[in-house]
């Protein structure tokens, strides 16, 4: 994975300044052009014409009597204002000199205004409108496995092992979770079994990558295949005939945090949720602090960047890699447990490529825990949006709209983010001596 940086370095050192301003100009103009398209598509379309209003529901449970009444916004003016703001952001980004920090803020405002303009356009004229709290809740539920998976990828790659096998760790975790939870009747036992199942897949990755030195990207793909085969085989031979005793779990109970749960709009959505959601956010913070503030983190990063140097100062390179990969596997396994807890049962290949999205979140988030959190949140949000807008009469099918996050990621990887740099020793086995 480091060929990108290897090929990139040579060109950037030769002419560091020129391509940078040029790419800033190009990406800014691209943003402005997309903003102009949004102005035309969202602000000037017939959908928002005729004094149409857009409803944004604020009650999590729409059948609740009383409570907050929905916000009604005049569609056309709001959509026009938001898209103009987006164009402005693009132009500012293209032509005004700014520091990196300001640029991130400008990008954030740009992105938010485009998304809002889209929402105003999507729900224009609908009598039901968009339910904001349920979008938030769906986003959180969809992001949890992605966050856990990307933490797995992060821990592995920071210590120098490429982890394409997140998908397999999800599947194995989900399978162990469902079979344990169904036979013991306790979902928490299932969650622990999910962690162990994920860790088992993680240990396979660690052993074959570090001891048998298999090329790690290939190894990940093969392990995914292995997990798919084993879980699929056992599903068909064990579970399918006996769904009730092997394959049925209850959902995770929600846990209400007193005080925070009564915050306006977001309170009931974000603070009356299953414990795993809080645990996930806690883990993100924990991994961040661990990586950048503790001895373990310093060692992990050292092993990921320059294992030989780390070895010289007495760090046990392989032992650290084994531990981190297995810990990562356990995280992903918990994500798998969440997936079955969310649906209620296991189905063949149920992860459906989520492991790869988690991997994308790792790279998109530049190998940092909070970056991964943001990227996973973005993917979760677009999924939630596709889910919520599928019932509205759209001129574009919602499946096509759900390609947007992937296209956006492409643009981001190609333009906004530019050359991302993986940990230097990522994917290279360490051979002592």
């Amino acid at each position: 994975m480091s060929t990108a940086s290897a090929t990139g370095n040579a060109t950037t050192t030769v002419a560091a300044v020129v391509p940078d301003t040029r790419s800033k100009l190009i990406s800014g103009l691209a943003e402005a052009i997309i903003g102009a398209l949004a102005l035309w598509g969202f602000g000037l379309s017939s959908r928002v014409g005729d004094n149409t209003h857009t409803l944004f529901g604020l009650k999590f449970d729409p059948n609740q009597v009383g409570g907050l009444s929905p916000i009604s916004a005049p569609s056309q003016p709001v959509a026009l204002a938001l898209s103009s703001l987006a164009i402005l952001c693009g132009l500012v980004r293209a032509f005004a000199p700014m520091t990196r920090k300001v640029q991130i803020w400008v990008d954030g405002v740009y992105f938010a205004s485009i998304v809002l303009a889209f929402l105003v356009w999507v729900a224009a004229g609908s009598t039901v409108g968009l339910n904001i709290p349920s979008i938030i809740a769906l986003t959180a539920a969809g992001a949890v496995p992605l966050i856990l998976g990307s933490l797995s990828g992060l821990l592995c790659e920071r210590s120098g092992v490429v982890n394409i096998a997140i998908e397999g760790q999800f599947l194995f975790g989900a399978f162990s979770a469902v079979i344990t939870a169904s036979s013991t009747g306790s979902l928490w036992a299932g969650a622990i079994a999910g962690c162990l199942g994920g860790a088992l897949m993680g240990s396979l990755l660690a052993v074959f990558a570090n001891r048998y030195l298999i090329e790690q990207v290939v190894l990940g793909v093969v392990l995914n295949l292995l997990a798919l085969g084993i879980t699929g085989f056992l599903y068909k031979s064990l579970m399918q005939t006996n769904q009730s005793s092997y394959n049925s779990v209850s959902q995770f109970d929600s846990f209400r945090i007193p005080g925070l749960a009564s915050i306006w709009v977001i309170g009931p959505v974000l603070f009356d949720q299953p414990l795993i959601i809080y645990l996930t956010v806690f883990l993100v913070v924990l991994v961040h602090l661990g990586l950048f503030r503790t001895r373990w983190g310093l060692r992990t990063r050292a092993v990921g960047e320059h294992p030989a140097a780390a070895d010289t100062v007495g760090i046990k390179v392989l032992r650290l890699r084994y531990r981190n990969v297995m810990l990562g596997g356990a995280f992903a396994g918990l994500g798998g447990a969440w997936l079955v807890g969310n649906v209620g049962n296991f189905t063949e290949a149920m992860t459906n490529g989520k492991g790869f999205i988690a991997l994308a979140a790792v790279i998109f988030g530049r190998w940092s825990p909070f970056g991964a959190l943001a990227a996973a949140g973005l993917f979760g949000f677009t999924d939630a949006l596709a889910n919520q807008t599928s019932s509205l009469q759209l001129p574009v099918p919602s499946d096509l709209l759900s390609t947007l996050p992937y296209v956006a990621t492409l643009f981001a990887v190609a333009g906004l983010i530019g050359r991302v740099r993986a940990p230097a020793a990522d994917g290279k086995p360490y051979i002592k001596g």
Partner: protein
Amino acid sequence: VSTPEPEKNEAAAAAKSATAAPQPQPEGPSRDWGVIIRNVFTAENSAMVTFLAIVLALVVGAIMIVLSSTDTMNKLGYFFAAPGDFLSSAWNEISSAYSSLFKGAIFDPATISGTPDQFFGPISNTLEYATPLIFGGLAISVAFRAGMFNIGGQGQLIVGAIFASYVGFSWTALPGALHMIVAVLAGIVGGMLYGGIVGWLKAKRGAHEVIVTIMLNYVALLFLGGWLLNTSVFHNPAAAGQAISKPAASSAVLPHLFGDQLFTDIGLLFALAAAFGVAWFFKRSKLGFEVRAVGLRPSAARTAGINVSRVQIASMLISGALMGLIGVTQTLGLANPNNNSLSPNIDAGLGFSAITVALLGRTKPWGVVGASLLFGALQAGGALMQTQAQVSIEIITVIQALIVIFVAAPQLVKEIFRLRAHRIDTGKGGEEAPPSVDPFHTTETITVAGGEE
């Protein structure tokens, strides 16, 4: 089942000495990504390790078959009272599964007196299953040799299939064979364009090819299933409510290769031609040389005056074109179950199985062909095994994955077999060479002295 016979021990020893052939080329500690990639796939490995890997994978598969049979496992409950019950039941399970695997893949002894079509039926199924894998394995190999990892086979073959399908059902004015040729070319162009995007983004914008290919896979998949198949241009009005395209005209369909009763189309010839072409490309062409040089060490290649960006784009174009050919055989070939029309799951996971085939074939064109034949045989046999022995076809996925893992980790295979060799024959102990730190993939220096000779 896995009791080692003396032959196997000798085989293990032979395998060991074969890989341990001294190649004294001391190399510095600098280990480039490209070097690693290339060595994984191109380092010598004896055929015996591959054979033992297949045996091991089948043994693990047999254990899974027994474990999954509740009937047999019940007999395990009173194993010590009547061990014969369990053993014979387990043996029946395994032998019925694997004999139907063989009958489905190679030939069925019962058809010896039958017609040639019956006799060659299983083999032709195997060839048909192997065809897309050959394309895919070659595609992965070309990208890999240039130091790139193409996970985007799914997207590239989908775009290829879209192009081929469109030409197949709409350009019916073209006469006979020309129609088919144009449809095949369209598929190639489709895959090529989609692969080229990856190469361009990687070379010019520094985008990570793994993330780009993953994203492009989703875009292609959602574009096809969510929108394209419901448009009036593509959607088949006869199949209301189903996301399925119009069937390709019969003039665009790939004809049978061995007669109408046998399930092999001329896609196989394309695949063999592609293998030949890629072999020539690597061995003889200038671009192929440059691709290998870039894969080995991009910085050195650049110093030597090779345009690295151009080579990366070119290798992704070729890789995408080969993936596009899978799209062609999936839509216009006999493998298509829907009367040669396009459906959302046209890719059938081939973009990913191609990676395993490439690994098994060590990215060598003819190695890829061999690996594809093996995996094609497993697929064809697995289909019969599912219907005849009621063993679900997922076991084939497990066996395939295990074969690849064992082949990629020959040290593990040797350890497994050597372990038993020690128990039986202790005379050779004492002078055992330490396990190679570097079995065969990551460096070219192998310093293991043959301790067992």
